[in-house]
């Protein structure tokens, strides 16, 4: 039987996600209301890559969320099902939820995927780096907007 070291998986692969050892410079962005309307990279993300990222455990999404991922046997139930995200939220709203969900709900357990400040005791291999890169955020946003119901 496959025994998965789950909590270890939360931490897995993070050190390989970003090549530079030095602190990562975050791209500036502007919050308008409850959204970040403009792409972090000035370019459109790739929805296929976005889906692959969402179901990959190292991205951590499906540890908490479930969604339309029939091939994934293990999905979380700590958070809303991602199906229909694109009907409920605009692209800009989804972007802010990924970049910094705590901006909308200070008590949320959803991590801020594009933030490096205001965090305590971050482990050496992750310090100064966002969980996801701007490109990865844009890919995931491009995928989430396709989830319509």
């Amino acid at each position, binding site marked *: 039987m496959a*025994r*998965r*070291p*789950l*909590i*270890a*998986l*939360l*931490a897995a692969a*993070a050190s390989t996600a970003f090549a530079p050892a030095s602190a990562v410079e975050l791209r500036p962005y502007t919050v308008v209301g409850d959204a970040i309307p403009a792409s972090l990279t000035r370019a459109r993300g790739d929805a296929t890559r976005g889906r692959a990222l969402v179901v990959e*455990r190292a991205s*951590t999404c*499906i*540890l*908490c969320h479930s969604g339309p991922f029939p091939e994934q*046997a*293990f*999905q*979380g*139930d*700590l958070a809303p099902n991602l199906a229909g995200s694109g009907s409920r939220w605009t692209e800009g709203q989804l972007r802010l939820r990924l970049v910094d969900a*705590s901006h909308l709900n200070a*008590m949320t*357990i959803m*991590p*801020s995927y594009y933030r490096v400040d205001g*965090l*305590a*005791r*971050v*482990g*050496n291999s*992750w310090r100064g*780096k966002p*969980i996801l890169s701007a490109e990865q955020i844009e890919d995931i946003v491009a995928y989430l907007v396709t989830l319509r119901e």
Partner: protein
Amino acid sequence: MKIALCIAFVTTMASVAFATEIPQSERRSGYSFMSADTKAMQDEDTANPGMLFVLDGETLWKRKAGSADKACADCHNDARVSMKGIAAHYPAFEKALGRPVDLEGRINLCRTNHQQASPFAYESRELLALSAYVAQQSRGVPIAAGDDPELAPFVEKGRELFMQRQGQLNLGCTNCHDDNWDKKLAGSAITQGQPTGYPLYRLEWQSLGSLQRRLRACITGIRAQAYDYGSPELVELELYLKSRARGMPIETPAVRP
């Protein structure tokens, strides 16, 4: 004015709702979240891989060691009598150090002070075996740690560490183990984090492991810097967890997925 009061009320409610401890009647051991197979493995001594460590511990208990050439048994005699209920009170306040020590720490203090031997490394086969043997003498005894008034400030520090958000994922222990213990993290049950069975055999580890090992795994899981083995912070967390589990029976050596 009315609105301000309302908001203040709502805010208070929110912080209360997130900081509540699990009521005594709802406390559940990690055991109760397991499959029938894994439960059977823990229940049946001949199937429980932790029992091999307990047997090793019994041998070590009787073996003379150090320049004092004394065995644990030379001071404490029959562990089945002298060690019954002891693990249920650990971590305990150590006057000479002015701080709490856990069971592993106590065993190592006996090594250095009474046997004049070198302390065992954390997670060494010897330390796991001896602590499993000692804790097994408390099987079924309700946890009663943290009562000593001198421990109060350390229990409080452990509680703060448990509540604190940390790591790149910015999560506190409480977010999973108080607020979401009835849920699943991917496929796996999030338990209440009750330290009833340590040291315990984890199928994932293919070995016995200490409570400190488990805590370091959860800390690394939220991508925070893990405290060193034996550090005051880990002992404070152990102490808080034990006082939070007051009244729950010891299961050592437990089995977990």
